[in-house]
């Protein structure tokens, strides 16, 4: 009852979303679902993600999760995006269970972005 609904990480990511932004004509995933609107854009080279940005309309947990996801995948292989799991990020950020559906929207967006990069990389 007396707990802060936002963990320290959520507060930190919400206050300083370093990966907020839009990379324009790079690979993108747009989702509007469950009262959440999301756009992820990525720049990639040889299957590796060079830059990852988000725009989001949603609650603080969603925004923080976007930031965490973007920060986490920069520099990694694009196909790793396909393994993104909402539960993991929820655990890391202490997102309450009643927000699961919203974070699943992010999961959809991340995986869809991963697929679009991998598909476009097919020679």
């Amino acid at each position, binding site marked *: 009852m007396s707990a802060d609904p*936002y963990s320290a990480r959520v*507060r930190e990511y*919400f206050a300083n*979303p370093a990966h*907020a932004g*839009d990379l324009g004509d790079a690979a993108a995933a*747009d989702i509007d679902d469950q009262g959440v*609107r*999301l*756009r992820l854009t990525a720049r990639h080279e040889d299957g590796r993600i060079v830059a990852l940005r988000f*725009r*989001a*309309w*949603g*609650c*603080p947990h969603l*925004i923080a999760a976007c930031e965490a996801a973007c920060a986490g995948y920069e520099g990694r292989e694009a196909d790793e995006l396909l393994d993104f799991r909402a539960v993991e990020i929820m655990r890391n950020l202490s997102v309450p269970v*009643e927000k699961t559906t919203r974070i699943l929207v992010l999961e959809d967006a991340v995986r869809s972005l991963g697929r679009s990069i991998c598909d476009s990389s097919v020679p």
Partner: protein
Amino acid sequence: MDAELIYLDYAASTPVDPRVHDCMRESAEATCANPSSTHAAGRRVQAIIANAAGQLAGLLNVDPATLVWTSGATESDNLAIAGGARFRAHRGKHIVSMKTEHKAVTDVFETLAKEGYDLTWVEPGSNGLLDPAVFQAALREDTQLASIMYVNNETGVIQDIDALGTICRERDIQFHVDAAQAVGKVHIDLAALPVDLLSLTAHKFYGPKGIGALYIADRPACHVEPLLFGGGQQRRIRPGTLPADLIAGLGMTAEIAASRIDDDLAHLGTLREILWNGIREVPGVLVNGDLAGGFPGILNVSVEDVEGESLLLALEPLCVATGSACNSRAQEPSYVLRALGRSDSLAQSAIRFSMGRPTTSAEVEFAARRYRDAVARLRELAPVAAA
């Protein structure tokens, strides 16, 4: 008091006036007796209670004997509505209230529905004001009780209690008024108003939490059945050891309020103007309620295309409310704002700023700036397509 935070949630609760603290402590130190005791110490505490009843009666311009002490407005509302309706069950089973009432009213109505009462919810206009003609049209032969709040806790809108009460009195309908947000803040003269039952609570006007009262007009048709049973305190309407120190505190709270309502209103009016002027230019911002017809301590605004929960967090260190405090746990959009015709999305972006005696113009200027910045930042964060 709430160091480092900027408290702008005086409609949720107010700080206890230091004089009220002192008065409660003095009462406690004068005697610890149980007011039901007949010995000399008991009589001492009875005198303290009688004095407090006089102070509260003075604020409302009523006979002290019309006041029943309760644990707060929730209990007063329950006692008035459930107790009042049951007392007059022979008169009819139709009861009327408004969609924008507090849960302590609407939930009691829903409970009465299960007992076979027939409910009508009248609808206010989009500014939150109830048109007396709409109210009147909802009344029937068998209407026996109506409950309409004085000052709305989310929007600050003030209903025309005089007109509504007059309609009730002509039709022998018990008229209950939830005045939790009004007592001690706007002038209420119950000698002149056609009100039968009126609920109030100390913590909304600089008194302690856990004490309230129900005014029961001294008219034969006007009475309530008790909800609690026990030692015959308070003419069997509400049992339990009277919390003398809290009652002394409520009395002092009332006396202080009586002396400064006009000053408080002027102060709040100035603050609200500063605040509104500071945010009215934000694109897509709208007032919920009615600036002209509302209590100046409250400014409730929605804004297009900003998510409410993120807005609230971005506003820190401001302590403000979305919807009413009592519903702030539920993440649903306020049912009160929905009843005013706001879309879900606008309703969930609502922020209630509520100001109080300690609020300064620097605080509301800061709040306005913070609001502008937060809206801008969140809009920047949102996908462009959404704009």
